[in-house]
């Protein structure tokens, strides 16, 4: 493979890896849009959903065959995650609604610890393969560039989700309701929006979205309670860079981060592959100095 081919390969790989960051970032954006919070436990909830999908899938595959079994597993996982997310919001996060932001953040940190611990107890800490439609190694070549089926699937899924979310927020009543509740719960309530319901839906949708991300990740690297720990940081960076309220921004930022990280690790000797984890932070920093509201975000006005 020649030098240009390598370059393009790195970009293609970056898009695929970035789609994983983007998936989690979308869930973070959703929670933020709906409840104004940053959910540090999003990755943990995603992993939990993926484990459920695995268990259900493995349970039904013997009876209905691999394709249907995997599909049922995914559907069940997404639906169950929706309810888990909604219940978590109702019974845990609701308590901190309207209170101090930092308390909610610490609560999500505690939630992350709890969920990781529970997953570890129930399913163990070993790596467990996720039964998926195709093997993670299947790939094809276009013009000398290797693209794995998984990469393509993930990429397309993310694009679809991004579009769906963008439409949801900008064009639907539900989206408007979610944003209204996050922005100003009291006036939203006065306008007839059911605040509590909106919050639960917001968390539920985010959890479902996260589970999709979790399943995609597990299909590639197998299931492990700590799967999203490293990715969460990239997703958070993507969310900030892209703007906390923009699904498109989060996804584009995620792709950008992954691509630049790949390129920096390969072409910048002094960074290398061990320090390339610094790249998202460097990007973040530069951006925040130049444009604090993020690439696509809206400026926030604080009234005293």
């Amino acid at each position, binding site marked *: *493979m*020649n*030098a240009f*081919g*390598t370059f393009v*390969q*790195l970009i293609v*790989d970056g898009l*695929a*890896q970035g789609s*994983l960051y983007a998936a989690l970032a979308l869930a973070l954006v959703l929670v933020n849009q709906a409840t104004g919070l940053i959910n540090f436990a999003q990755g943990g909830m995603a992993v939990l959903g993926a484990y459920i999908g695995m268990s259900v899938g493995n349970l039904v595959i013997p009876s209905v065959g691999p394709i249907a079994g995997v599909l049922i597993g995914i559907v069940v996982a997404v639906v169950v995650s929706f309810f888990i997310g909604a219940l978590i919001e109702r019974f845990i996060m609701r308590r901190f609604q309207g209170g101090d932001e930092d308390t909610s953040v610490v609560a999500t940190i505690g939630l992350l610890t709890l969920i990781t611990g529970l997953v*570890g107890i129930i*399913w*163990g*800490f*070993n*790596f467990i*393969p996720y039964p998926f439609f195709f*093997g*993670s*190694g299947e*790939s094809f*070549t276009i013009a000398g560039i*290797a693209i*794995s089926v998984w990469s393509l699937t993930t990429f397309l899924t993310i694009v679809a989700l991004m579009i769906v979310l963008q439409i949801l927020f900008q064009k639907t009543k539900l989206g408007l309701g979610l944003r209204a509740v996050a922005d100003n719960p009291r006036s939203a309530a006065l306008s007839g929006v059911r605040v509590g319901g909106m919050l639960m839906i917001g968390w539920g949708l985010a959890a479902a979205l996260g589970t999709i991300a979790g399943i995609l990740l597990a299909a*590639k*690297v*197998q299931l*492990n309670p*700590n799967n999203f*720990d*490293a*990715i969460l940081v990239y997703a958070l960076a993507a969310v900030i860079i892209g703007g906390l309220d923009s699904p498109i921004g989060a996804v584009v930022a995620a792709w950008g981060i992954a691509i630049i*990280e*790949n390129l920096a*690790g*390969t072409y910048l000797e002094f960074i*290398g*592959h*061990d320090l*390339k*984890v610094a790249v998202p932070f460097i990007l973040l920093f530069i951006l925040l100095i130049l444009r604090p509201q993020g690439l696509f975000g809206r400026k926030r006005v604080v009234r005293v």
Partner: protein
Amino acid sequence: MITTVTGRRVLALTAAASALALALAGCSRGGTPSDGGETDGPAAASPGITDTTLLFGINTPLTGTTAGPGNCTADGAIAYFGVKNAEGGIEFGDGKTRTIEIRTYDDEYNPEKSASNFNQMVADGVFAAGLGLGTPTNRAWRDAAAEEGVPQVLVMTGDPIFSTREDGYMTLGLVPTYMQEGAAFGEALVADGQPHQVAVLYQNDDYGKGYVQGFKDAIEGESNIEIVKELSYEPTASSLEGQITELAATGADVLFHAVSVTPLAIADLQKVIALGWKPIVFLPSNTASPGGILTPAGVTGDTFPGVYSAGFAEAAAAPPFAESEAGQAYFEAIAEYVTGHEQDGKSFPHCVWSWMGAQILEEAFKTMTEPTRESFYEALTSITGLETDFGFGPIDTTVDGSPAVQTVVLQKFNGAGYTNVDVVG
């Protein structure tokens, strides 16, 4: 002078409390708290050993990201001694028959926790400790063990420092050093006589660096082997595709893949296949399993010119193992004595290594003449020609600088398992 009522009260009560405390301090503690031994013959017994029992501590990660192998490092020994204890115990070299109690301590792969576990082990009065996983974690209490006179034996890390006989340290490594494995492959490449270009991917810690160092030492000065690119990765990385792409671009015909994280290893091999790169591949012993790595990655006997690994023990996941008598006894013991549904004795090679370690311990117990740690360590480091159930060669612990298991064999993947070979090609 203090004149207020409040002040006087504070002073008075504090003085009274101090007097009481000082009186208590007068009877300061004496002697070591964990003196559980009985005098037996001319030498006083070390802590942790009685006429009928011996306490052995395993300080290893039982939770966290390395919990899989970590649990395995204890499982093999628990199973083995479970069987022996059920048979009535082991007859020691001093004539007494004792049962072996294993106590595990979770260090979560955190050196600070590991060090405090050691304090707990001393408080619990263990006779000796070992079989634990991890270099930074074992290093954290290495000096403390030397200070307290506790043997730190048969540790599961390829770090050569544990096999170096140094004054005051009672340590011994179990598994071959990373250098040995890397060197085995290097020597085989050299012996091939053909020119080779090698691309290296290694984990950025003592594990990966050890492999590379051993490899480099073996190929030093040989004109037919050239390392064209060396890249590292962090164990916490979620994807190594960037590195693999960069290495593939070199067009090297050998890939030295010192990667210890299972899903990363699988993904790497898949990427190599996807890129159409067909090098000779070298895998370290803990990520070479056909069932755990190669099959999920879609590697068959023909995918690459050759997949090689440096092995030193049979793989529990391979079919011939389960068919052998020793293998069946092993699985029965695991099922009987090890709790935990995912602990099946074959997900990681460390379970088998732990079983072998237990056999080496048993040999030391059988030959030690006094119920003391010194006698135990001397017996442990005087073993020659011991055949273990699953090792490829006899155990010789007398060589300074070498761990207990020294026979490293180069193996080639044949589509289903590994066969021992002498040379690459």
